[in-house]
């Protein structure tokens, strides 16, 4: 009983981080047709921000606060140097951002070496729930992730910014002719996606090993979540992230990590075979 409760909590926190990563991917893809292969490296840079902040003697929370700001700034630079030249050329974006991901990875290797870094869990305590105890930090991480996901959904589905963003997604030319600066919307969305990945990397850093290639471990399930859920609707990301995260985590524990990976890919293949545009595909906006 205790084992199952802990497993469910761990799986939930994995799903929430996955959704944070996938949300950034999906808004950038939906809005400007950019498949950002470097999204995992933005996540990794967020984790390294916390590592470096720690080495400089700064408290964890300050590092976690700096991470979205720093990674958002990196996102702004990437948008300006690379992404704005290849909007809506999806195949080109894969190649360009894949190259970028190698550059970012190697840059981190040059500065901090290929070995993994560790971040001390900022809150060591655990809470007793019934007859088992669970780390407070993990509960806090889940709370923060839920709030961020809710915030993102509100931003894109309820706010005026979101209405403009979805208008640009649906009909970029028409939105521009209504006076909406589509380039500025693209830029802001990309920076938001980057900052989100950076923050996700920062808060998950104390729980995993931080190394230059850690991004891939979240990028691939992130993409599969979007494929399973459907790229058109934000709710698809929640569903896809939930399915992929649950399958992956539960089977890793019950069977083996390899079988879990196989199951995730099988799940993706079956769903895409049955519903080519994902479970929530074809629906837009919601």
């Amino acid at each position, binding site marked *: 009983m205790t084992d199952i409760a802990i497993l469910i909590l761990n799986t939930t926190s994995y799903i929430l981080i996955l959704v944070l990563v996938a949300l950034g991917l999906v808004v950038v893809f939906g809005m400007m047709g950019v498949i950002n292969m470097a999204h995992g490296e933005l996540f990794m840079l967020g984790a390294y921000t916390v590592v470096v902040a720690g080495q400089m003697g700064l408290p964890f929370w300050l590092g976690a606060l700096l991470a979205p700001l720093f990674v958002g700034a990196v996102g702004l630079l990437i948008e300006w140097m690379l992404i704005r030249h290849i909007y809506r050329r999806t195949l080109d974006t894969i190649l360009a951002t894949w190259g970028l991901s190698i550059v970012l990875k190697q840059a981190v290797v040059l500065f901090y070496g290929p070995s993994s870094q560790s971040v001390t869990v900022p809150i060591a305590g655990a809470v007793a729930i019934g007859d088992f105890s669970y780390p407070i930090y993990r509960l806090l991480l889940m709370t923060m992730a839920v709030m961020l996901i809710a915030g993102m959904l509100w931003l894109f589905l309820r706010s*005026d910014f979101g*209405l*403009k963003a*979805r*208008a640009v997604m*649906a*009909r970029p*030319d*028409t*939105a*521009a*002719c*209504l*006076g*909406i*600066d*589509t*380039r500025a919307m693209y830029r802001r969305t990309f920076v938001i996606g980057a900052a989100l990945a950076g923050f996700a990397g920062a808060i998950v850093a104390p729980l995993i090993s931080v190394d230059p290639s850690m991004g891939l471990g979240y990028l691939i399930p992130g993409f599969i979540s979007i494929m399973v859920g459907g790229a058109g609707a934000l709710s698809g990301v929640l569903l896809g992230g939930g399915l992929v995260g649950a399958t992956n985590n539960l089977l890793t524990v019950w069977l083996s990590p390899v079988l879990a990976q196989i199951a995730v890919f099988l799940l993706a293949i079956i769903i895409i075979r049955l519903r080519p545009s994902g479970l929530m595909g074809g629906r*837009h*906006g919601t």
Partner: protein
Amino acid sequence: MLAINHLHAGYGNSQVLNDFSITVPAGEVLALMGRNGMGKTTLLKATMGLLPIAAGEIRFDDHSIVGRASHDIARLGLGYVPQGREIFDDFTVLENLRLGLMGHASNNQTLPEQIFSWFPVLRDRADQRAGSFSGGQQQMLAIARALVSGPKMLLLDEPTEGIQPSLVHDIGLRLREIARDTGLTILLVEQNVDIVRTIADQVIFMENGKAVEQVPVGAIRQDDDLLARHLTL
């Protein structure tokens, strides 16, 4: 209000507009007629900055707008109702209208009351999904969306295309009312002679990317030969 001089524009290497020039004075309703493929839609898109311009000049309200971004051109006060209406199907009627205001950096984000007196259906069905509207209602929404920001001039691309005949005249009357109420300058691209007769002051005929003849609207009421020459195949 709008002056286009020696404009060359098109898609890639094919120049649809060849040395096209017109002037639309403030307060005038000018209809642009011509057969399909003569460059009417291309002209409006080029004016809105949606197509690259190879040569020539476009001045709107004393600003040169060649090379400007579409949103900049819109913010100068040029409203555009594109061909096929291009409403946001998944959004509500009210959201479509609010989008017409949001791009304009004014602090006043309330929809002008006048819009709803011209198009009462938009108030009655403000919360309905715009995609569920009929073609005619969608056209009214697209026109209203372009008008909420109070533009100085409106570009209308075939507002009667794909609309049931009973509504065509209705939309024509409504546009005439709007032009009279506001003194709005309008450049109307249209194939439908009825609506041109209803609202236009002047008619320009277009052939192969060039303006070939300009007449007052009275001329097409009297001279059927004129229409036959420019519109029949």
